[in-house]
């Protein structure tokens, strides 16, 4: 082509968000595009920063629990647990059986609810409208269980240092027992409706590939890490609570692409249902739901860090205590924040449609990213 007929092309700077339907909250991504191909992506975060860690320094331990609800608001139960677990470790508390079982049941139901929400919104990102409503209808059933248990649908404030706040109401355990086979059937329906769809397979296979080396270097956890073939699940590898009593598998895939993450999340839902089923079988008929704890919780001087497997990855809590009823410093290891770091690397060279698919497959919650 001679120089006179050569088209002049220019890179375009495109602002994706903070108001964009596919960023799942107030997240902004500045992308440079050449045609529809992304040459560079710079994430801008912090729109939802509320300073949880700083605020917590002026609150006693029970008062911090509602703040953890608001970090990962899609999986508030696991966040509750993450915080109280650290305090319990620091205090060396013994938790009653019944409370432990209730905690495991709600945490695993929460994982199912969280993955259902991801499934619905992810398919919406890919342009399919209906799965969102099906997934929400099923998620709603889980939220109704939580509502019955603690009076809230999203921000539960259910767990306490030493146990849980409320016992399961009459008939609750039976209702959850009926729900488990129903949910298994629903998951099969989702597979029939979506997983085998040619368009879905073509859009997700080979997109956003993460290598195992990258996953470890970027400190990715949860589904992101397991999609690269690494069977790392804290429930198995560093059991907390009573997870060593249940039989379940850690689903892994080796492809590391969006479709691998998609499949893992579905299998995780199945495994969570298995755990819920076993926990319901073993559920103690009676017993305390709160350990004997002093009226004013004072942690001994020292520090503790615990981590658990949240739906989005490893969530950790570090507490440094100077022997008072408030933490001297509290720090959360937020999996969404860590998982998001790999995004610029993944979207480089992809087109805009793939960017949406990749961002969705990371499954971030902005409340958690921004803290």
């Amino acid at each position, binding site marked *: 082509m001679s120089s006179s007929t050569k088209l002049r092309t220019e890179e375009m700077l*495109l602002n994706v968000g903070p108001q964009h*339907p596919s960023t799942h909250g107030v997240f902004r991504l500045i992308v440079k595009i050449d045609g529809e191909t992304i040459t560079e992506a710079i994430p801008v975060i912090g729109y939802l920063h509320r300073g949880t860690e700083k605020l917590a320094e002026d609150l006693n331990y029970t008062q911090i629990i509602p703040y953890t609800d608001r970090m990962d608001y899609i999986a508030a139960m696991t966040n509750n647990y993450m915080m109280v677990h650290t305090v319990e470790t620091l205090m060396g508390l013994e938790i009653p059986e019944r409370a432990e079982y209730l905690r495991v049941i709600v945490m695993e139901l929460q994982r199912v609810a969280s993955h259902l929400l991801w499934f619905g919104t992810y398919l919406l990102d890919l*342009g399919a409208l209906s799965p969102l*409503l099906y997934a929400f209808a099923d998620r709603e059933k889980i939220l109704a269980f939580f509502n019955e248990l603690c009076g809230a649908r999203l921000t539960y404030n259910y767990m306490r240092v030493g146990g849980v706040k409320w016992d399961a109401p009459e008939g609750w355990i039976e209702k959850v027992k009926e729900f488990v086979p129903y949910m298994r059937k629903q998951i099969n329906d989702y597979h029939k409706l979506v997983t085998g*769809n040619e*368009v*879905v397979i073509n*859009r997700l296979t080979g997109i956003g590939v993460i290598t195992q080396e990258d996953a470890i270097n970027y400190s990715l956890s949860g589904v992101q890490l397991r999609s690269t073939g690494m069977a790392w699940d804290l429930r198995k590898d560093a059991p907390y609570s009573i997870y060593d009593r249940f039989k379940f598998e850690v689903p892994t895939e080796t492809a590391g692409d969006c479709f691998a993450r998609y499949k893992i999340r579905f299998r995780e839902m199945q495994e969570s249902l298995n755990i819920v089923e076993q926990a319901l079988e073993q559920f103690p008929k009676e017993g305390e739901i709160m350990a004997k704890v002093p009226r004013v919780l004072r942690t001994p001087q020292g520090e503790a860090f615990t981590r658990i497997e949240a739906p989005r990855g490893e969530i950790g809590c570090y507490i440094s205590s100077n022997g008072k009823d408030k933490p001297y410093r509290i720090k959360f290891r937020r999996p969404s924040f860590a998982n998001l770091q790999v995004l610029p690397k993944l979207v480089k060279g992809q087109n805009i*449609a793939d960017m*949406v698919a990749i961002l969705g497959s990371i499954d971030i919650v902005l409340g958690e990213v921004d803290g």
Partner: protein
Amino acid sequence: MGAYLEQSFGLQNSLVFILSAVVLLAIVLGFVTYSIYFQRKILGWMQLRIGPNRVGPFGLLQTVADVLKLLLKEDIIPKAADKPLFIIAPVIAFVPAFGVLAVMPFTDKLHFADVGVGLLYYIALSGITVLGVITGGWASNNKWALIGAMRSAAQMISYEIPLVMSVVGVILMTGSLNLIDIVEKQKEMGMWFFIPQFLGFIIFIIAQLAELSRTPFDLTEAESELISGYHVEYSGFRWAFFMLTEYVYIFAMASLTTVLFLGGWLPPIEYLSFIPGIIWFALKFVAIVFFIFWLQATFPRMRVDQLMQMGWKVLLPLSLVNILVTAVLKTVL
């Protein structure tokens, strides 16, 4: 209609012209109003919802209220937009949408223009709409709109070719471009064209979905990627014009599919011919419209490059094969 054309121009026949055009317009607008309602109801039922049920009985006046709201909205033209182009774009998109309806035979009696090259007229005119879309996207001076418009242009060009190629089989079998002749031929053969032209029919259905920018080819409006594509800066009645264009094209495309492949106004068996042709036409037509909405509730969206690959590497060769096979069979048999 043709008879009126040959008469000298007088008060009576000009009145007939105007009135019949107004009647067609009313039918099409009525269709648009209720196809939106129909779409929302179908999507609602398929998605465990109820759909509109507040305005009027069963929500029948919902669309009327929506249109009224759009007409009353403030007319906003972005400061940086190219004003004349911004204003003219919805009109460019909209006029051909109505223009194509002129050649559509609803029954053997009820049609407006019996044009010898009816099919060619339809295809040529409908190709103009994409200019409106590009103009709108460009004039908005918005990056999302621009990407949407570019996608739209690429998609229309890529799919117009297989669309035209897929109907060449029908033209070969009929030996005419006249839409009425095409239906008459199907009557003569005693078989609708979707059976002998099955490959052509499938290609036509796929390509028409892409032409209409419906799911799974709704890339030009891609809500989750481009927010809403080329009409992101439009609001009020200009936006309503783009929407109107989209639904009028559904009307036109469903009519065209009925005429080309499903035997137009012909009954499925001869002995059901006591039922008027217009009813048969409406039934087939509604079935196609339903199919389009059904896909919308089922499919995710394809990716731009996959869409292009499918258009050029799959549909185009297949439609060429279809033409070859049809031509060979026609010569041999």
